């Protein structure tokens, strides 16, 4: 698995870099931004079409178990749902160009407040996760690579394998049961803390652990594979034979090339974090974007769903461009001229 992922990330990096073409950085960036805009637009269109195709609309969802046709019609009218879908989308899109995300169908509040409120907790979770993920994943990977084939390596390798197979919800239930309910060390949920999670750091421990569980495995395994390759490389041998101390060889010479493929993986973690966040937010009652998304889909609150699609699309695009920039900077290009 590790090699596969390493290979994969490296290939993706190479493929992407290659696509950049021979033009300069600016040309490449312009192309990528253009592509990113197209991607985001396509995501929004896709999400709009899918949400529109969902059975029922916001009015039906709001009517719930009292689907009185007259009431549904009235709600529909008050929400403006009686207008054609294309018209609504066009309105929303023109609003978007002015930086206006529109208003929620369900509450009439601006979508930006939904995104603004949900963004904080999710960003906090994601930032904490990534901040811990990198040192932890890299550290474990390096540790395993240093002791390749010995017990630390086996321990790390099998632990990451096992953990990787555990879905977030199972992991969350387990951690809550042990650390919050049985041992009582940590709060089981963040219920009632609202968006001010920083004031309750203890409540963040378990969610972040759950979010970390799978990415750490991938990262550690990628770094381990890259590190093993790097430690066996001629340039590391050269550094060793010229008397560079072991620690410096590992961290300054082997690690940078071991981490490059992992950068790509890190960008892909966004997608991952999002799905993780949906589950984790539900489990731990954290009112972030995942919760907003689930609720909005259930309520058929199209403007909110679209607003979120824009946010996620832009995030994905930006992070991928960032990762590609890193790869572009590092990936050796073409053969060396003699």
């Amino acid at each position: 698995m590790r090699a596969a992922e390493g290979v994969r990330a490296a290939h993706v990096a190479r493929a992407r870099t290659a696509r950049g073409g021979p033009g300069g950085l600016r040309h490449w960036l312009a192309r990528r931004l253009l592509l990113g805009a197209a991607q985001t637009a396509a995501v929004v269109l896709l999400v709009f079409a899918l949400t529109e195709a969902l059975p029922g609309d916001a009015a039906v969802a709001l009517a719930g178990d009292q689907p009185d046709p007259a009431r549904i019609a009235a709600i529909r009218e008050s929400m403006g749902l009686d207008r054609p879908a294309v018209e609504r989308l066009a309105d929303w899109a023109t609003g978007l160009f002015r930086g206006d995300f529109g208003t929620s169908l369900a509450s009439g509040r601006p979508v930006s407040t939904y995104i603004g409120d949900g963004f904080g907790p999710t960003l906090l979770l994601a930032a904490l996760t990534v901040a811990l993920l990198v040192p932890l994943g890299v550290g474990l990977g390096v540790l395993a690579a240093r002791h390749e084939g010995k017990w630390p390596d086996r321990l790390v390798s099998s632990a990451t394998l096992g953990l990787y197979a555990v879905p977030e919800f199972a992991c969350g239930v387990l951690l809550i049961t042990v650390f919050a309910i049985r041992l009582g060390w940590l709060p089981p949920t963040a219920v009632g803390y609202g968006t001010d999670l920083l004031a309750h750091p203890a409540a963040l421990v378990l969610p972040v652990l759950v979010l970390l569980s799978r990415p750490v495995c991938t990262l550690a395994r990628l770094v381990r594979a890259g590190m093993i390759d790097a430690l066996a490389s001629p340039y590391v041998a050269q550094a060793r034979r010229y008397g560079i101390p072991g620690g410096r060889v590992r961290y300054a010479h082997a690690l940078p090339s071991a981490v490059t493929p992992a950068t790509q993986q890190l960008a892909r973690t966004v997608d991952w974090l999002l799905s993780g966040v949906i589950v984790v937010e539900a489990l731990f009652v954290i009112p972030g974007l995942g919760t907003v998304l689930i609720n909005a889909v259930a309520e058929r609150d199209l403007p909110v769903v679209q607003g979120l699609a824009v946010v996620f699309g832009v995030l994905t695009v930006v992070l991928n461009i960032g990762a590609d920039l890193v790869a572009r900077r590092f990936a050796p290009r073409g053969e060396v001229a003699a």
Partner: protein
Amino acid sequence: MKSLSMKGSSRFAAGALIVGVPLLLALLGPLFAGEPGPRAASFTAGGGHWLGTDFVGRDVWRQVLLGGRSVVLVALAATVSAYLVALPMGLASALTHRTWLEELLMRPLDVLLAVPSLLLILLVAAVFTPGAVGLALLVALVNIPDAARIVRATAAEAAARPAVEALRMQGESWWRTAVGYVGRSAARTLAADAGVRFTGVLYLVATAAFLGVGVEPDASDWAVMVDRNRTGLFVQPWAVVVPALLIVALTMGGNLLVDSALEHRKKRRLT
């Protein structure tokens, strides 16, 4: 050298054993499940049910026997169908010299790649309320962009080798070049990727079940069992623990197998 190969084979054996138990249960289990007994009260232990009863009072052991097939088949089908689409796309775009064709094949995937996979699954599943087949296709769809890119990248590497040009100089057919050489050269990397992807797919299927997508809420399915029975975790843990362990074993064993296969390849490359 010897110790290395010993280690590799022992890892292979461990992987095979770990993956074998759930796989056998999944594939052969339904043959031994027999007729359903009368329903008992939910989440009870004993009373002729050696793993107790589940959330609607069914025998857990019988559910375990029945529940693997859908997980394994959905995950396998999803992985296979992702590759069925990704392979020709990736190979074609790696081997073509027409930029427009490559763009046509690969660009739409970039778009798909930007959609959060779980969001896509949630929405599409809500629109089409898919069954097992639908879920497999959906999970496959989510995996296609990534798989196609890997196929293309791996194949592009192989396709750039002089061996491919040599085949062209020999007037070999596209088919023989693409499948016989490029595909074959990429096979190992792709097999490894498929192993990882299978794990990812299992995870997606399980998480989709957690979010109530794509499977009957009372389906005999390990992932569904874990989700639906977890309310009874404190009363009757087996209904959760056994299927959960089986899923973990399936993914872990699969990964061990892939690892040992790669180890094997590395060793061969060394010697």
